[in-house]
């Protein structure tokens, strides 16, 4: 027996938006990729491909910046709702 109400399709605000979920998975991929690198190949994070700052700091700062960037994108895409 299946419920007659699917929260994923709800228009009453009780479901997360598809845009939000898409952005969530983008961040999960970034965060997961970074953590996989820390766990499996931490030596790669010592590389300094961007001037004098190593990949560990660049990617860490990048993750923080990405969180804010995606949040702003989400706010713009959901403006007025």
């Amino acid at each position, binding site marked *: 027996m299946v419920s007659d109400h699917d*929260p994923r399709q709800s228009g009453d*605000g009780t479901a997360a938006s598809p845009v939000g979920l898409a952005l969530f998975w983008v961040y999960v991929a970034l965060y997961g990729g970074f953590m996989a690198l820390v766990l499996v190949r931490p030596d790669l994070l010592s590389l300094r491909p961007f001037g004098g700052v190593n990949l560990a700091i660049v990617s*860490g700062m990048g*993750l923080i910046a990405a969180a804010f960037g995606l949040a702003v994108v989400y706010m713009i895409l959901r403006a007025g709702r």
Partner: protein
Amino acid sequence: MIHQTSFVAVAIFAAFVLGVLALSFWLGRKGQSASGYYAAHGQIHWFVNGIAFAGDYLSAASFLGICGMIAFSGYDGFLYSIGFLAGWIVALFVIAEPIKALGTFTFADALDSRFNSRGIKLAVAISTLVVSVFYLIPQMVGAGSLIKPLLGLPHEVGVILVGVTVTLIVVTAGMVSTTWVQFIKGSLLVFFCGVLTVLILGRGLAVNAGRSGDENLSPQMKTVKPDGTVLVDGVPQSKDHDLRPVGTIRRLPERFGDAQSTGPLGPLAYLSALEDSTIVTWSGKKHVDADGSHTTYSPVEKRGSDLLKPGGYFKGLTTGKLADRLDFASLMLALFCGTASLPHILIRYYTVKDAAAARKSTVVGIAAIGVFYVLTLFLGLGAMTSGGLDPTDTNMAAPLLAKSFSDTLFAVISAIAFTTVLGTVSGLIMAGSGAVAHDLVENVFGVQMNDHEKIRVGKLAAVGLGIVAMALGILFRNFNVSFLVGWAFNIAASANLPALVMLLFWPRTTRQGIIAAVTVGMMASLAWILLSADTFEKVYGLPREMALTPFSQPGLVTIPLGFLVLIVVSLLTTPPTAFPTSRR
């Protein structure tokens, strides 16, 4: 080390405490409704709520703990910053808008919105109280630990001072005063961390900072005798004979030639120069015998490039042991999933008017918290090379960094360190008060109350929780508090997140499934923690080898377990036929 009491620090802290109390009484002067007490009438502006998110979330563990960890262990402290911030992505994209639509006052309201089940309310109220208490203890112990070196008062006074102040803030105007205190704290914290970072970059890097000649690199020993007497290198500790402050640069990069200082540097140039420098870090080794406990602090020269990569604190990342790596992965998963499961964070969504405001306030929160966590890297590294670290106390890194600039800045940062405790504890007591009064008394025990009685019970619950928090802060004064914040995240993520996510995304979720997931997630994560190697070694004083779990952080096992239990129990029980989705 013995730290001199700063009159300016006492004055600034007293002014802040009196200021927030005056504000609270002013906000509470009008008559209140239950909606006002528990949710600020849903009328808080989204920007104020966003900064209050930062004030609520950035606890003493974030400010003092992460700065200290970076100062002593390097990059690994920044991994905490990354994990703590990442959790807000779950909050924004998955939780924020639905929970605003589902709930009224408490987290239990949201989980129970489609079932009207006393069982759900009971399970979630208990989980809220457990998480809040686990989060409260380190805040209160932190307050007590800070007050002695900073203000010269005993541990108990710090705990009671914070407990009484916070209880007064909460009972005067409930969520309204709590929000404004958190807004002020969040603003001050980010602003002054920004000021400190500008000063760090302006000062640049210097060899043997704070010293007239080379640093004395001979080991130092602190002994605590059974009668409590403290010796430093065998001589009673005093202001004239104390441990030396530590944390210096031995050599600057070759590109600076014979210069002893780099002068002002930009953010990237600062990090680059530090990576190419040689830094002296200190670590302690403790042994206990009949004469007391002896801790020897020894210097180690390290390359900056080694300190700015993973593995300084999480040793398992470099040793390659599978269990250690799983432990790290589990912690990072708990940080990612825990934020959006913390009841004191979730109830803040009820203080804004609609889902759009919930969304916008989360974005503001992410901005403020993200800026703060970027700054922690510079604060920690600045402290590491300031020459002023206390080798016995990693939590003092940020205040002592400020002291290396001026005593006034030290006083300001010290006072802000206390305000971090006030802001977070007030949010936790607010969440616990709602769980007791609204979930347990009103909904589980079925006590019918009018609006006035609901507020009175909420305030009584806040007073009771304040007393419990003070007692625990004194009782656990010697407890290793760093575990407790991690425990709170693990328990919150294991107990609350599976139920919340499945309620939103799986229509087959049943009442029994939610009750089972919350209960099993909470109990399993608690049991795992109590049986882990870290707890055996650092809490029970037993060998790590006796532990019954393969690694210490439970999230990697107990979060999926919560989902699994919910799915299995839901499939075995009668599905809901329809969901009433209107807010109550």
